[in-house]
């Protein structure tokens, strides 16, 4: 058969008791046949003659639909006789009739009801609890691994650690620098008007210094790294588990945690605080430039004031936070990676979750730190 044009499938009840089928009963020519069947009029004749002499072609779907026309009539108690069907078409109709009845019986057995809203809430809550429990046990496993590495330091893989420091730390220097600088400019700029009103221009130093070192630099660095490296960790481990590489490691006697998680964790714990120091510097530099242009605070005045206004603890608090954020980001990224099961879209889903969850947890942790520090009066 060449790709020749065929007529649309049709049936005619104009010459009852003759039911004349015509056209090509093939998938692409069925068009709105289902509606036509649905709108079939009730007829009085008890004996129907199905005339198949005008049928051009009949494929499996066509036979299925044709059978549903005939089935509708036979359920109304009509007797159907067949006329003019080519032998191969008749044979196909017969196969379909057999399948059709089996299907009708089978589909009556299976009834799937979607869960009610209460059940849905329950399912969601159980899932969330289960995930929290899994995360906890993941953290436990990694902790044990760290202890084991400290006891037996020769098992630490230095090469991947260095690689991770380059990937997550060194390569992120430009983007972290630019964003921290802009953040410093913006914060100083927003406060400039207010400070000028009170003639408190020099206090821009306190504002920039404390807010940058304590809050903004660790936070902006963590958010960027969560988006940049946390997602990469989840995607890498996720893809490896989809392609059975994780299983391959296990059967080769390599502990995936030790190979995949530990180097990332150590690399990140070194990189993120360093990036935070870098963000501190660029953020303050941004604020310094704005202070000079908007508030006439010279660089010398700015730095002179900065040393007095900012205590050492402000700086170390920021670095401490960065250390914790680094642990959060790596743990969530790797955890979500290991949770990947199935195919490509699961990798995407877990990667998204890793970014959302790690940013969420970073901000929650930041808020908890604020509460803690205010209680401790640091």
């Amino acid at each position, binding site marked *: *058969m*060449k*790709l020749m044009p065929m007529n649309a499938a049709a049936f005619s009840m104009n010459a009852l008791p003759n039911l004349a089928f015509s056209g090509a009963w*093939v*998938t*692409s020519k*069925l*068009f*709105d*046949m*289902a*509606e036509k069947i649905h709108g079939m009029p009730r007829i009085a004749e008890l004996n129907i003659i199905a005339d198949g002499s005008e049928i051009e072609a009949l*494929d*499996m*779907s*066509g036979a*299925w*639909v044709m059978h549903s026309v005939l089935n509708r009539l036979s359920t109304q108690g009509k007797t159907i006789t067949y006329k003019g069907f080519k032998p*191969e078409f008749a*044979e*196909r109709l017969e*196969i379909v009739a057999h*399948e059709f009845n*089996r*299907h009708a019986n*089978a*589909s009556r057995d*299976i009834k*799937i009801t979607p869960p009610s809203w209460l059940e849905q809430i329950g399912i969601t809550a159980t899932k969330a609890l289960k995930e929290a429990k899994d995360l906890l046990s993941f953290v436990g496993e990694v902790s044990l691994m760290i202890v084991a590495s400290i006891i037996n330091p020769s098992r630490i893989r230095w090469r991947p650690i260095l690689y991770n420091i380059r990937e997550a730390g060194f390569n992120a220097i430009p983007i972290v620098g630019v964003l921290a600088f802009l953040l410093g400019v913006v914060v100083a700029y927003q406060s400039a008007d207010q400070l000028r009103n009170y003639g408190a221009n020099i206090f821009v130093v306190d504002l920039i210094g404390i807010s940058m070192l304590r809050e903004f630099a660790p936070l902006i660095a963590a958010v960027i790294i969560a988006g940049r490296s946390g997602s990469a960790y989840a995607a890498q481990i996720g893809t490896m588990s989809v392609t059975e590489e994780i299983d391959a490691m296990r059967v080769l006697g390599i502990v995936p945690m030790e190979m995949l998680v530990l180097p990332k964790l150590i690399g990140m714990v070194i990189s993120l605080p360093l990036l935070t120091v870098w963000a501190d510097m660029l953020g303050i530099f941004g604020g310094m430039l704005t202070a000079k242009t908007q508030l006439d605070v010279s660089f010398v005045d700015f730095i002179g004031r900065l040393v007095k206004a900012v205590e050492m603890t402000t700086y170390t608090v920021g670095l401490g936070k960065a250390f914790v954020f680094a642990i959060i980001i790596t743990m969530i990224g790797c955890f979500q990676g290991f949770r990947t*099961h*199935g*195919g*490509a*879209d*699961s990798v995407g889903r877990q990667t998204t979750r890793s970014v959302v969850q790690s940013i969420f947890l970073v901000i929650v942790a930041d808020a908890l730190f604020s509460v803690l520090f205010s209680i401790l009066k640091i």
Partner: protein
Amino acid sequence: MPSQEIIIEVSNVSTSFGQHKVHDNVSLEVKRAEIFALIGGSGSGKSTLLREMMLLHRPDSGKIKVHGVDLTNITEAQGQSLRQHWGVMFQHGGLFGSLTIQENVGLPLREHTDLPDSLINELAEWKLSMVGLQSGVYGQYPSELSGGMLKRASLARALALDPDLLFLDEPTSGLDPISAGEIDTLILKLRDMFGLTILMVTHDLDTLWQVSDRVAVLANTKVEALGSMLELSVSKVESVRQFFDGKRGRSAYAQEQKISELHI
């Protein structure tokens, strides 16, 4: 049984990847309602030839005609209509991971026809039961299925639009002997009942003996031999001999001899 009408015509096709030459003036013809198998060692270009026939890869020179349509200068519209006349079963299934098995099978129908959802679901269920899958798995995702089930589901999707040409890439590889036998039977049934033309790439000697009408042996960038399994089994060509004289080749041949004796 095969008619004389030619469905796929490959003439003087040459393909190379960089310096590596895969095909050099390869020509063959597949007739209507024929079960045609491509065999050859790894890297002999079977899969590449298959991909060229399905518009996934373009040969460097030569002509491929499918249903009389030349694939070299094909328009997008022609390509689309051609694609609805063939079904493809990929070696690893190629099922969409974000859809259930039933949705996978229904997808071509949803894309290319105006049939209502209820009918599409019925047809998809039927195609799935035809390839021997139980109704319990229809709602599952491909990642939850075993390799054999994936193959069957992939075959069901290939059959969704009732194609008259079926491409099968390793239809029985990785299957247990019973499932492989069932797939063989299904392939024969599809051809006998619905007149499908089937082109497959396979290494499975049992499938080749049971199912194929003609076999083309690709080796050294050429079609080294072409004929029925019986004809090939007495061929003197070295690349064909390698295929039959291996231990597995001999045992499949012996088995075939026993079966045909029983029939006589």
